């Protein structure tokens, strides 16, 4: 079953049961956060919830681990800048 979600406003499709990170990678997106100090891009690294590199904003909530959080129909995923709190 497929689910519809958006990344920075762009409509994308994923398979139900995939994580946010997997859904983004499958859609060709490799990074979705910029670091707090260097502003460098980050995406998945450890893939099992250990490294916190893959933090992302989902439906306005920052610091969600993309590697653990399942994607849901209608999710609005946005690039997180720094700590995601503006």
């Amino acid at each position, binding site marked *: *079953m497929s689910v519809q979600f958006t990344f920075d406003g762009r409509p994308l499709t994923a*398979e*139900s*049961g*995939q*994580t946010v*990170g*997997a859904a983004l*990678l*499958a859609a060709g997106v*490799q*990074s979705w956060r910029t*670091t*707090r*100090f*260097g502003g*460098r*891009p*980050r*995406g*998945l*690294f*450890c*893939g*099992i*919830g*250990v*490294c*916190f*590199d893959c*933090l992302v904003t989902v439906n306005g909530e920052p610091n969600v681990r993309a*590697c653990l959080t*399942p994607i849901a129909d209608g999710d609005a995923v946005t690039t997180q800048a720094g700590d995601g709190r503006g």
Partner: protein
Amino acid sequence: MAAAATAAEQGLRVALIDSGRQLGGQYFRHPAPGLNAPWIAHLHHGWSRFERLATRVETSHRIAVLFERQVWAIEPGFNVLTDRGPIAARNVILATGSYERVVPFPGWDLPGVFTAGGAQALLKGNLVLPGRRVVVAGTGPLLLPVAAGLSVAGANVLGLFEANRVRGYAKHPVPLLKNPAKFLEGVDFARQLLRARVPLRSGRMVVEAQGTDNLEAVVIAHSDGSNRRRIECDALAIGYGLAPQIDLGLTLGCENKLLSDGTVALRVDRSQRTSIRGCYAVGETAGIAGVECSLVEGEIAGLAVAGASPGGPLTPRRDRLRGFADVLRTQHPVPAAWRDHLTPDTLICRCEEVPARAVAEAVEDLGATDARTVKLLTRAGMGWCQGRVCGYAVACLARRDPAEPASAADLLAAAKRPLARPVRLSVLTELDQRNK
């Protein structure tokens, strides 16, 4: 799972706390129901064994399986603190597994660089590839199934680069001969890779990842930096072995031991008891040994916790598998030369973005002689991952002499975590209210 099922069969009531959304942990990770692919059967070894174990757990009325709960501390007695409230228990069996050890190299923070286990988790749990053209590198037995899995799922695996020469195994014939199944499993993976025309090279490591905003290429070389070769790719899966997840045991005061591969594990006796009465440790938590050993040790602990004696073939099997794991450990050290390939700008701590320059300054100019001081001076290891990613590297770099291995004290400095997981303040305030 094995410990829970066994203890429940002995008549005990068991709470099985799993941070995941379904049974299986890392090794038996599998996709959510509904996700499928024609090659999925190739990703799993011993799947029927998992199904039997899952049935034992799921059909037991004595086991409460609690998913998506993170244990952040265990208080003596025991009070198991989870992010969704505390659970009281007379005995605790720690089967917390491991996380991957990676050492820094220039460009390792580029998107497209994954841990080997991370690439595998993406594939096993989501059926998604980390990239189309993938390089697998590092050291240790995990690299073989990772490369084989990626290949069977359709990735173009451009090479598997094992940093260590593998001929050292010949010096340890007895554990190898006693574990023919493990040995043949390795041969089987190697055969799969050869069939898929994946080049296998030993004695070579990734010395640099290149790219601007994404990984574009990796540079492979001998550990002394000679024979550099650039390989264009869009993903790198890299790992230098696994490190036991022991923080919950350390906070309880369990004794630990430094193993030959530079990892620290909980010390256990013949019945998997730690030095703390009522606290047991099994599998990787007691030293990296692989899935089969974890399953056997789970059974042993499940019996021991119920006061039954683990007779029969369990203990000799455990000893045989542990013997094999100890050989593996000696054959796949992190090559000390990783330090030579750092540049001043290479990030050591990914979370706090601490470059090698800052760590070198702490050690050479500011007089830091241990990992804890390096951490306090630079913030390396103070970020979200709580030093899990950079802890080993910082423990090594705290030694001025690159030939000197990381000390147990420095490795423990990163592994001790009074809060084993980052928790929300609301979880702590709730706990405070309960205590009133």
